[in-house]
């Protein structure tokens, strides 16, 4: 019992280590001292996917935003392994978009460093509440027993419920699953036809086979991860909280 609890706890810390897909991706790129571009993204794809796979087992509800990014990374990786693979303009757009967003994210995390180093160090204090010199009582006609009950109930009713799921992300995931299975198909075909494109990546025939199998297995992992999320939303009531905004 005791050890079980401890194990759970350390798991928890691991998944919490990354706030979102960009945080994970940027950490992987920075670890290698790379700049953000398609080359560096292709290089970190495997690490990213293996992390997402781990995350998927621990916390399926957290995974949808990671998978949206995973799909684009797979595109980038596919292109880097198979230069002959033709991407649609939408797919090209996704790749460009991911790079841009990652750069923006990088910028604001850097600026976040300024905030971290300044916050709470030199505080400007507003004055304390002034004491009333004289006693006043100034009510308002709108304060009645009934109105107060309504105000209290409204305020309580507006509080967010405990589960938030990003609605948009879940919808996106469905189409990305389709995209990946289509892509898998295309890659299989491309591999049959253009086996020599792999020469630069793997020297011997055995190596080529390993690369391809590994790559397809990786796609499979992600595909399953996505399926998992879709199933969750089909069989369980995921409360999709509509924000008041």
């Amino acid at each position, binding site marked *: 019992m005791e050890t079980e609890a401890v194990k759970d*706890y350390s798991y*928890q*810390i691991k998944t*919490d280590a990354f706030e979102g897909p960009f945080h994970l991706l940027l950490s992987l790129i920075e670890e290698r001292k790379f700049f953000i571009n398609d080359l560096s993204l292709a290089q970190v794809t495997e690490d990213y996917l293996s992390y997402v796979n781990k995350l998927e087992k621990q916390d399926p509800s957290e995974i949808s935003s990671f998978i949206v990014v995973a799909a684009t990374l797979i595109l980038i990786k596919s292109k880097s392994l198979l230069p002959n693979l033709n991407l649609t303009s939408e797919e090209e757009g996704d790749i460009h978009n991911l790079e841009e967003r990652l750069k923006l994210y990088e910028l604001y995390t850097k600026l976040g460093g300024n905030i971290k180093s300044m916050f709470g160090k030199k505080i400007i*204090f507003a*004055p*304390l*509440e*002034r*004491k*009333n010199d004289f*006693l*006043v*009582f*100034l*009510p*308002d006609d*709108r*304060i*009645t*027993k*009934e*109105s*107060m*009950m*309504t*105000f*209290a*109930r*409204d*305020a*309580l009713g*507006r*509080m*967010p419920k*405990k589960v938030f799921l990003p609605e948009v992300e879940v919808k996106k995931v469905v189409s990305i699953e389709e995209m990946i299975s289509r892509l898998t198909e295309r890659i299989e075909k491309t591999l049959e036809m253009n086996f020599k494109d792999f020469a630069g990546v793997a020297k011997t025939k055995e190596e080529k086979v390993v690369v391809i199998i590994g790559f397809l297995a990786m796609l499979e992992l992600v595909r399953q991860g996505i399926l998992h999320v879709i199933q969750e939303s089909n069989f369980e009531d995921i409360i999709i909280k509509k924000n008041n905004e």
Partner: protein
Amino acid sequence: MELQQKIEAILFFKGEPMSRKKLAEFLGVGQIEVNEALEKLKENLKDRGIVLQEKENPASTRGDSSTRGGEITLGTAPELSGLIEKLQKEELNKELSKASLETLSIILYKNGVNRSLIDYIRGVNSSFTLRALSVRGLIEKSLDPEDSRRYIYKPTFELLSFMGVKSVQELPDYELVNNSIESSAQNLAEELQAEESQNDANL
């Protein structure tokens, strides 16, 4: 920073009279330094909208003003008293905002509530709203007996009689609404605990 600036900030922050002696103690300097700094501050405030006011301590009229230990405070320039009175009147006659009424309703249904719970329920910070309610004599604050670093807020006696109730329990659906607030309080406590253990884990 110079002593006079420190004194100005302290008096501005506290907003109530403070004795020269206490100032000297708090700043860790002698009476004479404080008196000198106060003279400079007075000089500096000459053409400003705020002035240094001094209330002499009648109990100890012996000695000159530097050792007498009267109380000092910052206030608005006397020439502007008309303007400030007008401002005060306007403030008090202003209609209560929706935020104020909402905050008041939570204080009524949870007699003795702290600010963090009000903020948590409303999803926004309520400091200014609480000030507005307290200026109008609708609520009063006191130190939380459970945690002396924070305050709790209660409806005033006048408010209850204005509403025609002897106690908050007479409010409509009191138990229901009160329970709902209590369960929010529990959620807040759990969230804070979770946050704390996370912070510990990050260390």
